[in-house]
């Protein structure tokens, strides 16, 4: 088991993608299917952007072994009041400012769901959100 952590800073869109590209570098070394790597990168990237755009920053915990990768994104955010709606394609609560920057298309959570094998979202309004995603390399 290999463990890595990344810090995500609120509003720091300039550094969005740091964690996902580090993860990509690691997975490329393990001879994992390219399409699979792409899926993981997309899912983690979306989660990173979520934590930057909607939450007040957070931490990404990555656990990797031979069989799977597990990524946990814990944010100190406002929480998601209605998860069912947040999972709908195109639904977004992003501010006009965030949309102007090319983010906030309402594809974040749907995109994550489409690209991972397991997805678990724990959220509490006013406290924060924990998104746990797992991708199995053999599936």
């Amino acid at each position, binding site marked *: 088991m290999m463990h890595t952590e990344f810090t995500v800073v609120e509003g720091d869109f300039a550094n969005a993608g740091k964690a996902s590209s580090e993860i990509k570098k690691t997975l*490329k070394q*393990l001879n994992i299917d390219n399409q699979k790597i*792409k899926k993981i990168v997309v899912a983690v990237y979306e989660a990173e952007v979520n934590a930057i755009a909607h939450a007040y920053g957070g931490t990404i915990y990555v656990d990797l072994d031979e069989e799977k990768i597990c990524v946990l994104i814990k944010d100190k955010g406002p929480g998601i009041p209605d998860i069912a709606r947040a999972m709908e394609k195109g639904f977004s609560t992003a501010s006009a400012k965030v949309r102007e920057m090319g983010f906030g298309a309402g594809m974040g959570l749907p995109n994550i769901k489409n690209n991972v094998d397991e997805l678990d979202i724990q959220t509490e309004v006013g406290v924060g959100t924990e998104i746990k995603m797992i991708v199995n390399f053999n599936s």
Partner: protein
Amino acid sequence: MNENYFYHALRIDHKICFGCTLCMRNCPTEAIRVRNGKATIYENKCVDCGECYKVCPSGAVYVAEDDFQSIYNFKHRVVLMPSVFLGQFPEDIKASQVYSVITEIGFNHVFEVEASAFLHTILSNKYIREHETKKPLISTFCPAIVRLIQVKFPALVDNLIPIKAPVDFTAIYIRKKLIEEGANPEDIGIFYITPCAAKIAATKSPVGEDISTVDGVLNMDTMYNIVLKEIKQKKEFNKKITANNDVTSDCVIFSLTNGERRLNNFKKSFAIDEIHNVIEFLEKVEDDEIEDLDFLELRACDESCAGGILTCGNRFLINDRMMQRAKKLAERERNGETSRRKAIMNEREYLTQNSHVGKIKPRSMMVLDEDRSVAFQKLTRIKEIESKLPHTDCNVCGAPSCHALAEDVAFDRANMTDCVFMQRNLEKRGSLKVEESVEIMKNIWGEDKLKDYILNK
């Protein structure tokens, strides 16, 4: 030929190299180490981009070329001259003078490489239109980029346009013409004047195919010296010889940045030159960060082929001369003095049939082991070693970075004790003697650098 074997034209002369580390620090694929005081290349990581050649202060990095005399192994000697070759010469030297001299130094035929660039464009654009799902399609014009993608971005190998380079088309065309004129195929020798090492490597071990279209490669700087010397010493030029009119105005600048891109009209395309810029961009492409991308023209050298390591003179001046030539040609095309339809287009069908390069395979240098479980063990070991290293990337161990050393140690190509910080720590503990540290340093840096200078002064 061994599948994992890449021919490399870049070599290091160990008699000249003094182990300055500049090449190692500038290599975009971390392919260089210092051993015994000399730079050495990990051949499976090298993509022949020539960055090491550019930065080498002592001229120790050189480009292996075919002996000029080897042209005389053939009865029909053809030289394939890329347009960038003419761009080397100062404005007072005419293209016709260069042509005239080339035919006098041993060649029977001169042909400009970019003669086939127009056909190449037609075929590439057709391929791009027919492969919407593979977007973005990436040009294979620059062989260093093809190799870079094979080793560093294997996920993008399928995005490469598997169509031969203009030099191949032109060579195939000329060979056919000469055979039709009665030449024995074995008597035909086609020689290409190259602006860079990557083109040599691609010629000696072509990507995806096994037979080379040319018989030899001559370095552009060598040819420049030979031709310029002849021109300077000559008083009379053969007036009968004029520059061939093989290339259209837009193809004269094909090898410059934007040369390919301006010949297509895709909605979203980029022309990016210089290998570090290319790597930065490909990281984004690989992550699907850029949407609806149609086409990428990527070149390893700054200012593309005008900045090739074997060109002579400043790349911006070369670029400008080529642009001026294109302008003049365009003027003549508009006035009807020259046709845009060239003879090579008559062989369109034959060339199209021979246009494919075959399957381009990934040759990842990133994968630690084919077996994921072994790869994982290696990865864990690398991380563990790396965590103990100082992260100074000081190069004293003979590797370009602490990470590179960690990788080398995990693959038994180096030792933890190669790290000078590690040595100090072990000495402090008493588990390594100073003499042993000096021995380690000698293995990396050679005897000379560890001479007792202080006491001798």
